């Protein structure tokens, strides 16, 4: 696939159809991937990469690096297309300046899972079919890909592309992989257990804002947490309250717009399962206001800027009616 993508990108550059290509490039190690803008065939030949480590969602990168006066080619994995569709719905990117190519994804590897297994001193990693071979300073290891795949990919919601100008490879389908299982497990706990669980997780937060800055739905010019006039601007959680507040509000601000791309959890340096907050909102919305998948099509109306006259009352939470 990588070679086909490179070839197509170079063709489009050569024909003048596009002047920039947004894709991924390899960095220091096999698993280090950086989103990048390519402007020439030489750059593409040298650096362009697409493999099982290309996790970063290019939609946010496109939003940050967009140019109106020229056409940009963007490669999008299925889950990235949802974010892109949402950005277009919200008029945050200029669709006319983009040439979108949908590409298949077979699940991305989470290097942190390999590290958590105690594997260190990694010299190279190769992913072939179901096998992931890791060469390290301290001996070689082989993993089954499913064991080291990112959590978000194990619970992949869709292999289908919601938007593209051109598709490479086969179109996939929306899937049911039990992505709400973890949420349900938490819901089944007692409040004390849930409180304990979230305290344990959120107390690791270092307020680096990576979750916010990586999120394709977080595109405000100035975030409420950076605005001193709000009275809640914080640089660090000086009290456990602020950890709760930040994460509730972060998730709330993207509720109804979050496509569940999982970038927040991927980037968290402290491995906090932030997607479980977003998925709770998605789950509640689905149950209370009807199934809704943000980023499914352009022009959808988010459930939080919508209503019906017979919506459930907030009491439903207290009375446990759902």
């Amino acid at each position: 696939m990588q070679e086909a993508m490179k070839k197509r990108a170079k063709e489009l550059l050569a024909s003048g159809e596009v002047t920039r290509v947004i894709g991924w490039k390899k960095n220091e190690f096999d698993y280090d991937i950086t989103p990048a803008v390519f402007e020439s065939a030489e750059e593409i030949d040298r650096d362009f990469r697409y493999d099982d480590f290309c996790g970063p969602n290019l939609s946010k990168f496109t939003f940050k690096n967009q140019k109106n006066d020229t056409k940009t080619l963007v490669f999008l994995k299925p889950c990235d297309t949802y974010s892109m569709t949402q950005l277009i719905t919200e008029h945050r990117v200029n669709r006319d300046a983009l040439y979108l190519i949908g590409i298949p994804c077979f699940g991305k590897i989470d290097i942190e899972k390999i590290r958590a297994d105690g594997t260190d001193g990694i010299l190279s990693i190769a992913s072939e079919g179901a096998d992931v071979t890791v060469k390290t300073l301290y001996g070689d290891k082989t993993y089954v890909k499913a064991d080291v795949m990112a959590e978000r990919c194990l619970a992949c919601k869709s292999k289908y592309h919601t938007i593209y100008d051109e598709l490479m490879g086969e179109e996939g389908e929306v899937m049911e992989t039990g992505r709400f299982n973890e949420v349900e497990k938490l819901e089944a706990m007692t409040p004390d257990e849930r409180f304990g669980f979230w305290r344990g997780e959120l107390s690791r937060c270092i307020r680096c804002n990576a979750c916010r800055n990586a999120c394709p739905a977080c595109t405000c010019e100035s975030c409420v947490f950076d605005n001193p006039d709000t009275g809640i601007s914080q640089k660090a959680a000086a009290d456990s309250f602020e950890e709760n507040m930040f994460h509730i509000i972060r998730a709330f601000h993207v509720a109804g717009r979050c496509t569940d791309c999982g970038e927040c959890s991927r980037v968290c340096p402290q491995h906090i399962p932030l997607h479980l907050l977003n998925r709770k909102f998605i789950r509640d919305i689905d149950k209370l206001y009807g199934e809704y998948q943000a980023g499914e099509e352009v022009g959808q109306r988010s459930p939080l800027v919508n209503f019906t006259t017979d919506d459930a009352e907030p009491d439903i939470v207290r009375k446990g009616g759902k």
Partner: protein
Amino acid sequence: MPISEFKPKIVAFCCNWCSYAGADLAGTNRLNYPADVKIIRVPCSCRVNPIFILRAFQRGADGVILCGCHPGDCHYTTGNYYTRRRMTLLFSMLDYLGIEKERTRVEWVSAAEGAKFAAVMQDFVKTVTELGENKRLEDRRCKKP
């Protein structure tokens, strides 16, 4: 602190057009409701950002209640419909984080429902008193030494 001594601090956001007038009516009719309820008047229940609710807890509230016009009666036609969705999701999230779900409430109180206002407040204060001090969503810096 023994429960008998515990007086909860309650913040009540009331919409200007219905619930605030309802509270006023409760007052003019000399209906009793606990003095621990601090009313904050807002133009519409929809004005209440989830951050307001959390900030109230941060600054020492033990319970937060939001009162607005009955659905369909909003002065701005549809404001409270949005409130209803937002608060449902917020309360559900608080519950998900293990924070007592009885500490938050939304009630629809019209300008004519002075008695309802008093009854709701009495009931809410009673519920929160039974729960005791807000510990799970407190900011220790804001506790008076």
